[in-house]
């Protein structure tokens, strides 16, 4: 990033605010296309939701508007080492959402039919016998499941760092401990000030996660966003009993066992986020909900020990779909509000953000993610 000798100001083609996985992925794609990029991160890379999520690499159960993006991302995950020069701990297995009632399974069948009409065939429904073959440890009450072969998981923190390192290797500048203090447009240039430097660039990317709503307001866009802290629990090590990632059709659950024997249990039940102080608090009644759900599928978990709970601060939009697109002012691109399911999308979303920053029209329909969709929805 060149610096002006007299003013100390640095210039870049694109300044990205937020060093989570989406900011780092956009930086990687832009740097690979030859642009100078600066990433400004208020804390450290991957400090919040990007580094503290469950690492699910999942197409299963996505909102239909998100399926094309997710399917594209899945293909990129299979080649993740070529993209970021690290395996990211990526493991392909299968993803299941188990049903306990015939009604739940019927809804799964309906969903598969809708997806097939749209040309997507990755999801199917497996019956009880197949389910128990796949998951011998599952309780007898598990009647079947919505299922995807080929989905899996990665190690979130390692993955963010891999995107970061690859972006840096391609020339991107990453600045940690750099909260934005001022941001203003001067002519066609955005000037961003942090305690350590001023960066000027014609394009600014808002990848500020849970803090993206506040930043959008400073960029002139009102985008509703709320911060929550989806909670996760990890057990001490236990003998291997499940290879698939397991969720439920009728309740919040996401469960996987890592190679070291620890079991990660989450599912999006929210704790309390204090985004101003970076703190999160547990909602213990919520913990009871998803831990109980876990023992409904795997009763033997009751005897196991929880080693740690944690929660990362994430931004949620009113419709739980991300915000990806141009802002109202010139040179603004938003990419935030992934509502706790953005990890898998990151390799593909970063490329779309690079398209937008370049001024090219992306080859994927971004209308469901339009930044002004909430303003349009408001009554006059």
């Amino acid at each position: 990033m060149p610096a002006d000798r007299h003013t100390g100001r640095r210039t870049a083609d694109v300044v990205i605010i937020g060093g989570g996985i989406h900011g780092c992925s956009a930086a990687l794609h832009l740097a690979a296309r030859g642009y100078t990029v600066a990433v400004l991160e208020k804390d450290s890379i991957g400090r919040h939701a990007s580094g503290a999520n469950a690492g699910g690499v999942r197409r299963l159960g996505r909102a239909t508007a998100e399926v094309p993006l997710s399917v594209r991302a899945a293909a990129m995950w299979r080649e993740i080492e070529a993209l970021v020069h690290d395996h990211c701990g990526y493991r392909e297995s299968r993803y299941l959402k188990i049903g306990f009632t015939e009604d739940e399974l019927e809804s799964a069948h309906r969903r598969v039919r809708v997806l097939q009409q749209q040309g997507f065939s990755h999801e199917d429904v497996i019956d009880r016998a197949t389910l128990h073959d796949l998951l011998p440890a599952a309780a007898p009450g598990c009647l079947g499941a919505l299922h995807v072969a080929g989905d899996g998981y990665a190690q979130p923190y390692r993955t963010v760092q891999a995107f970061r390192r690859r972006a840096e290797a391609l020339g991107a500048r990453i600045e940690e401990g750099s909260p934005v203090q001022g941001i203003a447009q001067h002519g066609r240039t955005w000037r961003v000030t942090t305690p350590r430097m001023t960066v000027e660039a014609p394009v600014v990317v808002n990848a500020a996660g849970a803090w993206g709503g506040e930043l959008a307001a400073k960029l002139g866009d009102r985008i509703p966003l709320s911060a929550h802290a989806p909670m996760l629990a990890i057990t001490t090590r236990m003998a291997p009993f499940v290879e698939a990632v397991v969720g439920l059709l009728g309740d919040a659950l996401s469960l996987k066992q890592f190679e070291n024997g620890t079991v990660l249990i989450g599912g999006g039940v929210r704790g309390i986020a204090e985004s101003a102080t970076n703190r999160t608090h547990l909602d213990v009644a919520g913990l009871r909900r998803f831990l109980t759900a876990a023992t409904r599928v795997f009763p033997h978990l009751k005897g196991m020990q929880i080693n740690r709970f944690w929660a990362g601060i994430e931004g949620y939009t009113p419709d739980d779909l991300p915000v990806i697109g141009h802002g109202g002012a010139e040179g603004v691109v938003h990419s935030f509000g992934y509502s706790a399911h953005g990890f898998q999308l990151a390799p593909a979303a970063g490329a779309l953000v690079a398209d937008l920053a370049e001024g090219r029209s992306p080859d994927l329909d971004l209308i469901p993610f339009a930044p002004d969709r909430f303003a349009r929805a408001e009554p006059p």
Partner: protein
Amino acid sequence: MTDLAVIGAGPAGLAAAARAAEGGLDVLLLDENPAPGGQVWRGMAEASRAQLSTMAPDHARARAAVARLRSTSARYRPGATVWQLAASARGIELGHTAAGAVHLTEIPHVIVATGAQERPFPIPGWTLPGVLTAGGAQTLLKSSGLVARDAVLAGTGPLLYLLAVQLISAGAPPKAILDTASTAARRRALRHLPAAILSPAPLLKGLAWRRQIRGAGVPHIEAVTSLAIEGETEATAIHWRTEAGETGHLEASHILLHQGVVPSTNLTMAAGLDHEWDDAQLAWRPRTDRWGRTSHPAIHVAGDGAGIEGWEAAEARGEIAALDALQAAGHLTESARDRAAEGPMRTRRTATRLRPFLDALYRPATQFLVPEAPATIVCRCEEITAGELAPLIATGLRGPNQLKSFSRAGMGACQGRFCGLTVQAMISAATGQSAVETGYYRLRPPVKPVPLGAFADMTVEEPADAG
């Protein structure tokens, strides 16, 4: 309904619970151990006269403290592990497990009296079977009468000499004491001697221990600068070097290590309270005022958990914190509180006169805080060595949390108790950052592992102010 929960039934917790109950509060005393006394008075309330003879001579105080508690209305719940402490809208949310069940309750006020833990001692071989901490060995001695025979004691700190004396009394004198207090530390400590002499009792006790050790013919090797434990599957020998450059080697299957204690801060850190670095004690402690009040007005910390001062000061600090809690609850006026606190405040002052001398004398040397040999294990839960961490620090990682995410150091069941200070010291040594700049692990509940199944049947007790 409970007005006050006290966590920990050592000297501070027993005094706090008793005083608060005497003053009219409804007190719940939670303790992890099966019997009261904490670490320093472990087993004393139930010990036989014969057992007591091998224990510290303070047992009368222990019995008195327990008897006082039993004479109050305070409810004492042993075998209770607190794993969650957090500010909530209506007070303090407190989660604990007892007998396999998870309890969650909101309490207006909490006094944390969780005491101290031993400082990590990362030398080659410190995790081998046969190696215990001096505190661990003392626990076995007090709770089960198990004696480590022909043990080699290595390190520094009063507990090391106390244990030597206890082993001698139990008929199992140690094979040797390898003393890591440096000549420079001794010199620095002398500066604090005049103040220490004003309260001579502990000093005399220390001298008596030394005489006893010499009298029993236990070799005492001083100014040891390097230690390495040898053995493949278990400890077989210990090797050392002294300041004078002399080396030594002893075969030993029992090696007891100790280099002081530090406040046990996992619970107070997980609760999000402000902490500060104590450079004299090389440890973190919650920031407290003279009443033990933390950065949260409804949480006090009493005893060694708020800075190491020893059990006599801990009793006084328990008393003081309880008086402040009584005042906060409206059971005492400020002036009544202040009057009642005069005695305990004086006791605390007297009991801590020796502290600067002890802190200087027993300050661990850098090479025992920052592992020198790459093969030395730093995180024993995840078996991560100094040689694995050093290159990560060299890539520019500036804090323990980043290092934890990259290496898994600190992710095990001990929640960093055995590696946190070592990781912090390694980063500071490599970067030149101060302890505060480097910081410490962000700690998460549960502070101790909790049974998953217990959550399904969790008891959520009614808040104290519900009708």
